[in-house]
């Protein structure tokens, strides 16, 4: 009895300790961000691996998500004779929810896990310690550029996801199912507000970008430096980022769209 309570207590202390370490780590990363802006090539290199190389999966998934939305929306709306509103359905669901959330989940799987694995392997092969030996701060040289790249990339990727998704919905709705072209766009323009809907979606993706990259670089930096430790850290990155995205999405939605 006492033993299991003690176990619970130890688990709780461990969890809070990690949370505290993550925040101290975040402070050091943010301190490391200004020097990265001076060494722009580091950032560009990371933007390539984190952002540009995630582009394909984002574009393809965005197109398919948009097409499915078009198909499902049409099947539901046609019962009410309201298939003209298909553009509104597709655009609002993508702009407000699916764009930031699905792009964030894909980003966590595609780029977040890669970041954790890369940093974790650097740690277990003692490259990070090696840098410290040479008086190079690994947080400034390795972590901060990756963090900043992820933070910048996800909003861009989410915006592209949304735009491609709307084109996908247009392709299915107007191209295949015969919804009126003019009604599709004009109803969309009448109902989607730039500040209220699109900017709130972008704000969501900025928050997700921050959290996902933070989790990814922290898990990598904090992993147990063995092959098993790196694999567990990578798994944790994907699980924790996905949960964080979905949980935060609920909170943000509740705050934004009342």
């Amino acid at each position, binding site marked *: 009895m006492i033993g299991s309570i003690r176990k619970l207590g130890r688990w709780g202390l461990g969890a809070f300790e990690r949370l505290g370490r993550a925040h101290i780590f975040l402070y050091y990363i943010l301190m490391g961000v200004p020097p990265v802006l001076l060494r722009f090539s580091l950032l560009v290199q990371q933007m390539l691996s984190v952002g540009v190389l995630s582009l394909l999966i984002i574009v393809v998934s965005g197109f398919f998500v948009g097409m499915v939305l078009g198909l499902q929306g049409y099947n539901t709306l046609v019962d009410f004779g309201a298939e003209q509103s298909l553009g509104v359905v597709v655009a609002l669901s993508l702009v407000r929810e699916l764009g930031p959330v699905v792009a964030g989940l894909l980003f966590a799987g595609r780029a977040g896990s890669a970041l954790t694995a890369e940093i974790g392997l650097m740690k277990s092969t003692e490259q990070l310690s090696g840098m410290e030996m040479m008086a190079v701060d690994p947080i400034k040289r390795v972590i901060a550029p990756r963090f900043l790249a992820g933070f910048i990339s996800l909003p*861009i990727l989410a915006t592209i996801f949304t735009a*491609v998704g709307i084109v996908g919905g247009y392709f299915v709705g107007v191209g295949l199912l015969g919804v009126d072209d003019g009604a599709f766009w004009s109803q969309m*323009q*009448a109902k*989607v507000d730039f500040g209220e809907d699109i900017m709130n979606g972008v704000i969501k993706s900025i928050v997700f970008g921050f959290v996902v990259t933070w989790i990814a670089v922290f898990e990598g930096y904090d992993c147990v430096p063995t092959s098993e430790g790196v694999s567990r850290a990578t798994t944790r990155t994907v699980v924790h980022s996905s949960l964080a995205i979905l949980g935060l999405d609920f909170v943000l939605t509740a705050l934004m769209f009342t």
Partner: protein
Amino acid sequence: MHNSKTVEILVGLFVALGIAALFMLAMKVSNLSTFSSEGGYVVTARFENIGGLKVRSPVTVAGVRVGRISDINFDNTTYEAVVSMSIEAGYNTLPTDTSASIFTAGLLGEQYVSLEPGGDEKYLQQGGEVRLTQSAIVLEQVIGQFLYSQAEGGDK
């Protein structure tokens, strides 16, 4: 893996693509291109019942959208709803005896304010008031009245 020039070009394209996507969302998807809230003027109208009218609902003249509802308030003394409508600056020749009615787009559609221009030679200005109003038709009331009159008719 790549030389730095290629990397920079790819990243530049990536950022440009993101900006293009945002631009498309702003211009093609949202109401930013069709609707500028600046430069309009606000007129108010009092209704006994506004039904399901909401802020940002459209205001139309002859079916053409000329503005939107900017504010809805309740007057504590007259028990009426005070609806503020922001009309685009281009449509500044609405006569002062214009009347306003609340209609529904389709059977289940959203509600909007329809303005019916009168014949006065003076035009509505900023802060003006539309005096002739017709309340929203509440479907439940109409059905209730219909059933009532049917029942009355049945007695004869």
